[in-house]
């Protein structure tokens, strides 16, 4: 037995290193961001929107859509109509973050401001190519019920563009589709915000 000096070095070294990394990337951001307050213009999600947000997560929308417009000085995200650079306060009600790392489709942090139409969103979910030629977004027909005959009271029917319309078939949105659209419409961080994280912290003190 060699006194197990090597093991001591290995354990100590490995633990110190991961502690340091955790301090830098988990604990310090936690301490710094904990005090960030929601802007007055930002409202908490309603139950329906919160349900829609769950649908957004469960369908994996985040794998193709970011929710973090970059600063105009850095990238032309604002020129695409995606909005100003977001700040930590914009996500005050987002328990699970959906910042995303991919833009197979456009950034969605302000989709509700860009496209407030429920009709458009529902139809687009049912068949994206009916609205955006060349789109490679999946169609989500399973979030709708198709049947012959008229819709019942309180049901929301989608109206597809003529080229995609299905004569004689009524396409009704499910709770998931309606919730998802309500969530998308709520994605609107166009209110002005000048404060950086650091400035909003100054105020918190």
């Amino acid at each position, binding site marked *: 037995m060699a006194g197990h000096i090597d093991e001591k070095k290995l354990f100590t070294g490995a633990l110190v290193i991961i502690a340091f990394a955790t301090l830098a990337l988990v604990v310090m951001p936690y301490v710094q961001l904990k005090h960030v307050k929601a802007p007055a213009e930002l409202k908490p999600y309603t139950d329906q929107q919160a349900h829609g947000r769950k649908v957004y997560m469960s369908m*994996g929308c985040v794998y193709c859509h970011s929710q973090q417009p970059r600063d105009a000085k850095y990238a032309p995200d604002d020129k*695409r109509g995606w909005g100003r650079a977001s700040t930590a306060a914009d996500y005050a009600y987002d328990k699970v973050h959906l910042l995303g*790392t991919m833009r*197979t489709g456009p950034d969605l942090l302000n989709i509700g401001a860009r496209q407030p139409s429920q009709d458009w969103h529902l139809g687009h979910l049912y068949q994206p190519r009916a609205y955006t030629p060349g789109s490679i977004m999946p169609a989500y027909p399973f979030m709708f019920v198709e049947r012959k005959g008229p819709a019942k009271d309180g049901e929301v029917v989608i109206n597809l563009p003529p080229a995609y319309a299905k004569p004689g078939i009524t396409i009704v949105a499910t709770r998931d589709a309606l919730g998802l659209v309500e969530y998308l419409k709520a994605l609107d961080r166009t209110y002005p915000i000048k404060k950086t994280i650091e400035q909003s912290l100054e105020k918190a003190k």
Partner: protein
Amino acid sequence: MDGTALILLLTFLVSVTGLLVFIWSMSNGFFNTKQSASHIIFGQNEIGLVEDPASNQTNNELQEAAGETDASLTQKELSDRLIADKSSALPAFVCLLTAMCWLIVGSAAAIIASIKLHEPDWLVSQAWLTFGRMRSIHLNSVIYGWASMAGVGVSLWLIPRLLKTPLVGAKFVYWGAIIWHVALMCGVAAIGAGYTDGMEWLEMPWQVDIFIVLGGALMGLPLFLTLANRKVDHLYVSVWYIGAALIWFPILFFIANIPNLHFGVQGAAMNWWYGHNALGLWFTPIGLGAAYYFIPKVLGRPIYSYNLSLLGFWCLAFFYSQVGGHHLIGGPLPTWMVTLSIVQSMMMIIPVFAVAVNHHMTVGGNIKAVIHSPTLRFIVLGSMLYVAASVQGSLEALRSVNVITHFTHYTVAHAHLGMYGFFTLVMFGSIYFIMPRIVDWEWPHPWMISAHFWLVALGFAVYFIGLTIGGWLQGVAMVDAAKPFMDSVAVTLPYLKSRSIGGGLMVLGHLIFMIHFILISLRYGTKKEPALLIPKVNIPFIKEAKVAATELKRG
């Protein structure tokens, strides 16, 4: 001076101090490593003797390529190694078999997801088949099923050889593997059914994660039990890598999955602290640990610079653990954090070159040996792609490059260069070496090894090159605000299709590998003497070897 600059300065000072302390301790012999420490994986007079159970044992091309030798093993050394191999055979096999199953599941999900990106109206009638879920099923299957299990299996098999001590606590592995796999099946099914924690790499519901932690801990336990009984007086560099990985991963996974702790933007910082450390502190050390064993062992030649390999280990640990923030460049995060990660990403060039120089000098341009050893073919290529992936990763962390590549398929290609080009290829090579030792049987069909190699090598080349070009064009189109967004979609289409073709070749390679794996597990074909103990060349010790083998069987 404001707070941000202060934090940045402090982290910088700590980094530099850490480096100085490290250099000082090296020069003062704290590590006390002599070059001879690299001989620890060999017998007394074994250097010069090749070992690759996957190569054709009936001719001696590999030994010829490595150079003639009169090296040999003593009977004691040989029987010790046989006992060590035997102690890890079943636990390693259980892990590798399950890893292989997940490789196939993960590959199937991958190809479906890939085709969906250019055929968006294909398989849209069921929620579980939608792209967002298929992609997550792919990721979780290959990360927690294939890569983690293969890594654990290879590690468990290496530990007794590295410590020259039979594996202690094999029964923990069986329980751990069962718990891990049931949990993973539940996790993947949950994702398919739409239950997800919502963060990349952390999709599985936290209720499932509890069992992953438990199963993982049980499977890692034998390392520490065996360490306590070790017979070698120095830990070879592979033990450092593998041991640290087994300490790090449970901590990472546990902290990342604590429910209701992380929030909003902080959750994003944590998400990529975890995501990148899963690669940097889990897969990379295991892959490098395996490469640091198999390259010298197959060639019968100690690692070129042992000190460099340990320097590489500590630098990798320190710098790699802090690079996660580079996934959030341009995002709503504290600037100091992102900058810290960019700086450490650049610092990663140091350990990467330590590995590059070391592996390159050890192989020493011996292409012939690499060609004649199936194990080396995979591992040397994997090692080279490790260097490529790491250098590429450092460059991608630069803001000027990141503004183009972030949010594009370029990043996806890069991630696969690391997880597939490097890690998976190293695991393939390791399995080719290990399986004949585990089942005491030769790979039945050498052509299947070649077919596997060329299919995955060519398939991955098509995958990577196409997607890299497509991703770059996508990024260039996206930062040109004069072009409509849809241009950035249209430009990728040919490359998304080429990705499906490349991916298809890779999947075909995996299927051949799986069939071959099943064949060798069933001991298909005729057994070839001498029981694969040692190559049939330069065998002054062959009689002793046979005796040792028979004795072992009786015992």
